[in-house]
């Protein structure tokens, strides 16, 4: 009987496949428009700020701040129900994009995760992709 595993992204989804391909090299990427500087996240093929659509992939340094979070104590998912309690959080990356992730490497997520705390990227390794998670910075 196999252990349930974390649900992983589809690597062939047309808008996000380059994002996930870059995670194989442990690169956290986002897009910015050459013409109007709009930061685009989640990834797309078009710019939402102008119609020119000249998007360039940028590399995040992997530092950010917890904008808000919750500690999940009940999940029916076969993988996550074995992980409770765990923290999900909106992470505001220093470069601007706000991404959903988990805050890990804390003893008690209720006590040790705070709004406004600085976090840093840590990769959870998988075969096809690596998953961008965060831990308290420093």
């Amino acid at each position, binding site marked *: 009987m196999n252990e349930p595993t974390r649900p992983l992204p589809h690597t062939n989804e047309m808008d996000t496949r380059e994002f996930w391909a870059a995670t194989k090299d442990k690169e956290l990427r986002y897009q910015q428009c050459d013409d109007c500087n709009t930061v685009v996240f989640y990834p797309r093929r078009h710019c939402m700020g102008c119609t020119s659509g000249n998007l360039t992939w940028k590399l995040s340094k992997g530092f950010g701040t917890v904008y808000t979070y919750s500690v999940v104590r*009940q999940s029916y998912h076969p993988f996550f129900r074995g992980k409770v309690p765990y923290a*999900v959080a909106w992470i505001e990356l220093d470069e601007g994009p706000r991404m959903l992730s988990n805050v890990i490497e804390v003893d008690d997520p209720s006590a040790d995760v705070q709004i406004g705390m600085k976090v840093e990227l840590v990769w959870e390794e998988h075969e096809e992709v690596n998953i961008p998670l965060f831990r308290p910075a420093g």
Partner: protein
Amino acid sequence: MNQRDAAIVGIHEHQSRDVEGKVSALQIKAESAARALEDAGLSWSDVDAIYDAGDGGGMNGLTIAEYFGLKPAVIDTTNVGGSSYEFHAAHAKRDIASGKANVALLTYGSTAHSNARAIGVGGRGGGGHHPADNMDMFTGMTLVANYAMVAHRHMHEYGTTSEQLAEISIATRCHAMRNPDAVRAMEDLEFLDIRETTIDDVTNSRMIADPLHLLECCMISDGGGAVVIASPEVARNCSKSPVWILGTGEATKYPQTSADITTSAGAYSGTQAFGEAGISPAEIDIAMIYDSFSITVMVLLEDLGFCQKGEGGAWVEGGRLRFDRPGDGPALNTDGGGLSSNHPGMRGIFLLIEAARQLRGESCSQVSDAKLAVAHGNGGMLGSRHAAGTIILGRD
């Protein structure tokens, strides 16, 4: 002065919250439609426009028309989650005002409970192949955690407390205990303790996703309903008094850099709707606000302008939202809401139905001389991407 160019003339809420797998969602829709038409004194042949959230599979706008045996001139299958029915009501008013339709039929049916779908307390957010889902799915964010993140930020910014959020749960439970259908729903869904609740009951209930407790989460029921909206010419000859659609608003919101998660799309749809109706929130007697979770109502009371942003916590204290406190502002969710009466997944239609009951004088928790109501639906997820629909209703 607002335009009285469309009115709710027929309503029906399916009574059972647990059909034990013996009735389909389509059957709930058709039965509810027939009862709502009877309520109006109309029949299938009067209907020339249908509005359905397209949750019946591919080509739903076509298949639902055939299932009902209708050949409508207008079909609208807008699906924005639980607020779909506020969008439908707004579109029905627009379509009737433009002369494209005279009698609009809105339908909803769901067997979420029988299907054991996890909506309220443990369901997964996202999934599937949409690029947004493909970015979020690895996190294990549940539906309640999505809303809980709004609650945490609200507490952080404004000092809102769990005790203040609990006021929303106990007000709706107070109303549910007066509604026999809601009491039966709680019995059928095997609620452990079916009675009026206290703030302590709520804050001592199990934490589901910090900071939201079990009694701050909606139930997962079966159910459905229908609403009939008609032109003034038709409405004048219907069985029941018309409930006029005085103003409508629609808006969306999604995660963006620097966006304030404590303000929902309701701030925009509400402004539109109140502006069109030409009334202020202070005039509202009945607030039917989508109570998927306690925090949803807290945010929306602020966004709709009942109080300032961040002041909702203090504003709801002391039982202010109860039906028997009319001098203090609107009564909240007088049917018992999604928290304690009915939540089959997309409860926006029940907001319209109970608002209409109040303005007709038919509610189990009737506010005396109720004249104006707001029905506000929030579809999708408050903490990420959602669609807001606001409908202002008034009687003659």
